[in-house]
């Protein structure tokens, strides 16, 4: 036990003497957390605060284009800038000055009205309300196209949400036009009383779990667990580099000749780096609690959750340390461990759902995400943070994290034993 504490003390000294390493361990994850939360929070707040400027070319100049313009403006997501020339709007978008240009075709309002009236007349004629059906003045199969020009650099998710938004506005206009046409045909004289209630009959209501009613998830509550976990797993980088450095310095060779087991050597490192993981997590929480409200980011609520959060961070830390010990044992040079470690953390984070939620991944990747310890940790954090569960519900996840630590550390010890038999 004494040797274990001596090893841990040495690791602690090595850590605090490396100011650059300390900055990477503690400051960088905080910067990362603040940056990501600010960006994501801004995305959430885009609807209210910063509007995306888009170009609007109105070749219709009718009621429909006015309604589309009004509809886009009323979403509060866009700042609509009117342009006369389609070519100019297209050039500006393709140059990257704007994300999107919407071009409304000529005669859209009048043609839509004619089309709807003809359809309504056709329906009414079948029911014997309309006496005679006049031939269509519109060319068959001639559809009106609202052109959307996107900046080639625009992300697909943005394109999809814009398309859906515009589609919803246009559908609304079409429905209103149909209702109006029916009203005009069915009422014999102009009436101030509407025949149809044109308001949406179906609406959405979000039901949250009883236990989570007081804590509606916000950007901070999503980001702090995710990026804390990312930071915790980044521990594998300094840990494995520290171990590789011991090999190049020759201190590792000396350790192998000392009457101390490799498990004790790894144990000393585990104690210190596990402490680092927990401190990292506490710093993240403190930032969420005290700094976020100051910089207008949503604050987090951890009342009654702290013990469980610390337990999850401890087990996530163990899994991260286990992986770091394995990489540090296997790799021989800094050039091997640093890029591999960094890339592995990014892959595990991607697989674990830190960037893209697991449910949004392709089926194959969803299955694969189950092997990422970051996925287990993230689920445990979300369980505590957002689903307000008790200790028993996080047992499966923390067990997996602990097993991961045991397996990786055992492999490291066995590999080291085998390596002696060169």
């Amino acid at each position: 036990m004494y040797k274990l504490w001596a090893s841990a003390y040495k690791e602690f000294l090595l850590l605090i003497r490396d100011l650059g390493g300390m900055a990477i361990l503690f400051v960088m994850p905080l910067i990362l957390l603040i940056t990501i939360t600010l960006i994501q929070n801004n995305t959430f707040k885009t609807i209210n605060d910063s509007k995306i400027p888009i170009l609007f070319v109105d070749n219709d100049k009718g009621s429909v284009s006015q309604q589309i313009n009004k509809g886009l403006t009323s979403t509060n997501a866009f700042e609509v800038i009117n342009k006369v020339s389609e070519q100019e709007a297209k050039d500006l978008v393709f140059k990257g000055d704007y994300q999107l240009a919407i071009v409304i075709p000529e005669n859209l309002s009048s043609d839509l009205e004619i089309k709807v009236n003809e359809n309504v007349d056709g329906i009414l004629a079948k029911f014997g309300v309309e006496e005679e059906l006049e031939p269509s003045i519109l060319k068959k199969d001639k559809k009106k196209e609202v052109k959307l020009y996107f900046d080639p650099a625009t992300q697909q998710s943005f394109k999809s949400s814009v398309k859906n938004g515009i589609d919803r506005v246009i559908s609304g206009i079409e429905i209103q036009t149909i209702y109006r046409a029916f009203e005009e045909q069915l009422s014999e004289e102009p009436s101030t009383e509407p025949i149809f209630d044109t308001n949406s009959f179906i609406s959405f209501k979000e039901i949250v779990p009883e236990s989570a009613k007081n804590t509606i998830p916000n950007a901070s509550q999503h980001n702090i667990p995710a990026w804390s976990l990312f930071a915790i797993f980044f521990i594998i980088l300094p840990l494995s580099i520290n171990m590789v450095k011991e090999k190049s310095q020759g201190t590792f060779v000396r350790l192998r000749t000392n009457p101390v087991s490799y498990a004790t050597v790894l144990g000393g490192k585990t104690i210190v780096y596990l402490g680092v993981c927990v401190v990292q997590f506490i710093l993240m929480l403190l930032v969420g609690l005290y700094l976020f409200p100051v910089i207008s980011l949503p604050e987090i609520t951890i009342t009654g959750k702290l013990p469980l959060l610390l337990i999850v961070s401890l087990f996530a830390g163990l899994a991260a340390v286990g992986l770091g010990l394995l990489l540090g044992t296997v790799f021989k040079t800094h050039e091997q461990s640093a890029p591999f470690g960094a890339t592995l953390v990014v892959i595990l984070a991607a697989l674990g759902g830190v960037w893209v939620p697991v449910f949004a991944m392709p089926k194959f990747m969803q299955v694969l995400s189950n092997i990422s310890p970051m996925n287990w940790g993230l689920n445990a954090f979300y369980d505590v943070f957002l689903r307000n569960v008790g200790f028993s519900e996080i047992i499966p996840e923390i067990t997996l994290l602990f097993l991961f630590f045991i397996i990786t550390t055992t492999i490291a010890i066995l590999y080291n034993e085998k390596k002696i038999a060169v």
Partner: protein
Amino acid sequence: MITINQLSKKYIGAEEYSVSNIDLVIENQEIFGLLGPNGAGKTTLISMLSSLIKPTEGSFTINGLTYKQNKNKLKQIIGIVPQEYALYPSLTAYENLFYLGSMYGLKGNKLKELIKQHVEILGLTDFLNKKILHFSGGMKRRINLIGSILHEPKVLFLDEPTVGVDVQSKNAIISHLKELNKNGATIVYTSHHLNEAESFCTRVGIIDHGKLICNGEPSELIKLQEGARSLEEVFIAKTGKELRDYV
């Protein structure tokens, strides 16, 4: 006493043995110099004796113990001074020595006293709380030595302990080793400094191509080698003038 029987080592993938059929007995309190050109097999032999690598064939005992049966007990009675400095540059000399001593189970005032004692002898008292990264080569070599002898080993293996140091540091190291030997330690050391080995060692063995060519007291080897007036001339006569570059 170190008893080596038919000890051989062939690295995985290598075509030839690095150490081949070495038979040797090193008595208690001897200072045995293992001499040989680059790539002769000196470090491989010391690495096997200090448990860093496993032999391919043969066996050895140190004070009647084997690594297979008494790994930790054996490690407790030996000390290894590696060729590299094998110290943590960002830690002070004291922190390095405290940690190395702790790994042998030394603690508390006893450890502090031992550190103080050795550091004083090797003239490093004023630098005890300075970081190793600021030390000169000679100072590092002396701390490297102290780190391996704090637990007062019965057998001490030194792999080129005086390489790259100034004369003063070399003298301090050698005289401290002589003192340890006087107190009962058996010393096995490798070196390219043949004059140093001639005066320091009670017996030397010349190894080349993994084989022990000869061994005996330096004066005896000089006497036996026709025309030789020094150990260096014996060495050249036994190993030749051919350059020994290897990768």
